[in-house]
């Protein structure tokens, strides 16, 4: 369980409180109006933002004070998820060895991960020679290959067209979820949540709510969510 123990995050004049837990091995959507603090919560889990109060625990282990690189967390950002001067294989290899001194087995594992996201044969390409969708696949392969169990998606597919975005979300489900990873994704779009996330947590009015089954939440939205979705939403 990913637990938020009396957590308070502040950034500028903005405050977000969380005192709940997220289930392990599920895809959980953070849904709510922009500016509500969805990305702020991810930043805190990843270690980029130190809580003003409270703790974040992963299966009982306190993450406080751990630098980002030592947390059990892989994160995909809105952009700049790949280094333009590294090949697809190297980008994936970073998930195994951040100093890129890859053994034969690690190279094989990276190639296999690329194949699993549909990029067999493109290992030597640099991002400039890949399409936007292919670049996202490389980043997903890196998440897949790394041994970190918790995956944070801060809208990494926002720049893709609707069809490509759906493809990526399906990959998240069929590869990351299937591999047993816990995925927390920020989304604006209820359809995204319905597509992949078994659970959704509403982030609104300065609070992170306890995740509930996505369909249940969206079919019978609480007032704050209903306002955000608008009439006839979803």
């Amino acid at each position, binding site marked *: 369980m990913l637990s938020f123990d009396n957590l308070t995050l502040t950034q500028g004049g903005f405050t977000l409180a969380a005192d709940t837990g997220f289930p392990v091995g599920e895809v959980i959507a953070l849904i709510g109006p922009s500016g509500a603090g969805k990305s702020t919560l991810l930043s805190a889990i990843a270690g*980029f933002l130190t809580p003003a109060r409270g703790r974040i625990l992963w299966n009982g282990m306190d993450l406080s004070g751990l630098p980002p*690189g030592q947390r059990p*967390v892989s994160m995909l950002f809105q952009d700049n998820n790949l280094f333009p001067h590294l090949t697809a294989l190297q980008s994936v290899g970073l998930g195994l060895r951040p100093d890129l001194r890859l053994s034969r087995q690690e190279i094989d594992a990276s190639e296999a991960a690329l194949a699993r996201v549909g990029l067999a044969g493109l290992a030597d390409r640099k991002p400039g020679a890949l399409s936007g969708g292919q670049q996202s696949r490389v980043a997903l392969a890196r998440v897949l290959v790394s041994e970190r169990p918790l995956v944070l998606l801060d809208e990494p597919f926002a720049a893709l067209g609707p069809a490509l975005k759906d493809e990526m979300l399906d990959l998240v489900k069929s590869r990351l979820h299937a591999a047993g990873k816990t995925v927390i994704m920020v989304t604006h779009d209820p359809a995204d949540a319905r597509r992949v996330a078994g659970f959704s947590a509403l982030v609104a009015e300065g609070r992170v709510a306890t995740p509930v089954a996505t369909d249940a939440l969206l079919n019978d939205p609480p007032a704050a969510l209903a306002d955000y979705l608008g009439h006839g939403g979803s």
Partner: protein
Amino acid sequence: MAHSAVPITPRWPSVVTAVLVLLLTIGTLGAVAWRAEWAGGLAPADWAAIRFTVEQALLSAAISVILAIPVARALARRRFYGRQLLITLLGAPFLLPVIVAVFGLLAVFGRNGVLNSLLEQLGFAPVSIFGLQGVLLANVFFNLPLAIRFILQGWLSIPAERFRLVASLGAPVGRLLEWPMLRAVVPTTLLVIFLICLTSFAVALTMGGGPRATTVELAIYQAVRFDFDLGKAALLASVQFALGATAAVFALRITSENPLGTGMDRTVQRWDGARASVDGLWIMAAALFLLVPLAMVVLRGLPGMLDMPGSIWAAALRSVLVAGGAATLCVAMALTLALRGGAVASVIGVLPLAASGLVVGTGAFLIVFPFIRPADAALAITVLVNATLALPFALRAIAPAATQVRADYGRLGASLGMSGWSWMRLVVLPRMRRPLGFAAGLAAALSMGDLGVITLFAGQSEETLPLAMYRLMGAYRMEAAASAALLLLGLSLLLFWICDRWGRGNAEF
């Protein structure tokens, strides 16, 4: 407080850089102040040197700016074949060794130069350019291009829509657009050039001299080399520092312009019907003034290239090694500061701007003198001083890229758990290769042509190429000096080109 958004870069490299810079700027100044003979005060000759230093810097700045305004206006509104090349060449004097330019200027304006032979044939008396005129000539040669670039940037920063609006109103372009722009740009330009001319030791050494044309730096040099009066040298060095620091404080306050900035390939389209012929004359005159002396270096130097004395080649080798060492050290220091970021790093980075090579050199001389023969430390100290003096320019070239890399990839690197060294090797160096190459080229060329601190230290066997060339000129061995000048020019440009080329090596993304 948030975790660092970048992989943990160790603190010690930037601390080492800071200590080195502080030692060479403030530390040498301390040594100078300690040894200065304050009791004696300043002799009349010293006051004359101070007056001359300020006077030549003021005049040089004023002449450069006054001449630059019409040239910049002409370049701003005319498009012609070779315009971009000319603008690029305006950046070249920054890389040009002073002694080479002086040689070229003497070949044109000197006693046996082109100008005087023309005058003689026409029956006029020859002109002499030693003393104030010579110092001004050389300073304007170096700073006119800089002034043109500054002011041209001002012209090009006026939005095209304004010119259109003024034209449609039938209003005067000069009063509405150009005058306000000049009022903003000219004071900065004057101050920057004034500052540069305060520390133009090599110009004063070659063109000045005598009781009426001695700068403070030249007086320091004479006190060390001729009188071996270290107390007096130290006193003068304190004076020089006070002069430079005062001007630098003003300059830093009003300038944020990068004199090496590019992107000036646009012309301003305008409708006020200025006469093309006048613009053409200004451009032609400026180009001739800048290019003919360089052409003379090539013409005079080429014939003797193959039978230069062996000592020149040895000096050239020494210079290349010094330049390589200084460039490496300079870029390494700049990188540690750029990666650290923050206010302290930028203060450390601009500190050397206020330092005069001669003051730093005098301080270093005072520090090493009790322990070893100064000549033995000549090359090592030259490397250190050259690297430090080039640091502000190198830092300026790489700092934006360092900030960019941090902003774009800092969080990714941190979340992947990259160590400081992996981050450096896998991300920083590949991403910053281009500005690093440029900065290294800059530092190498500046160091290659430096004729400052080395003059205080070197004996015969530690000569660098500029010093060897200076001594040849002093001995009136003009043919050998000409070839040395061409060699020096070629090597400076070659070093810059190699480094810059390396930086552009992987232009695939």
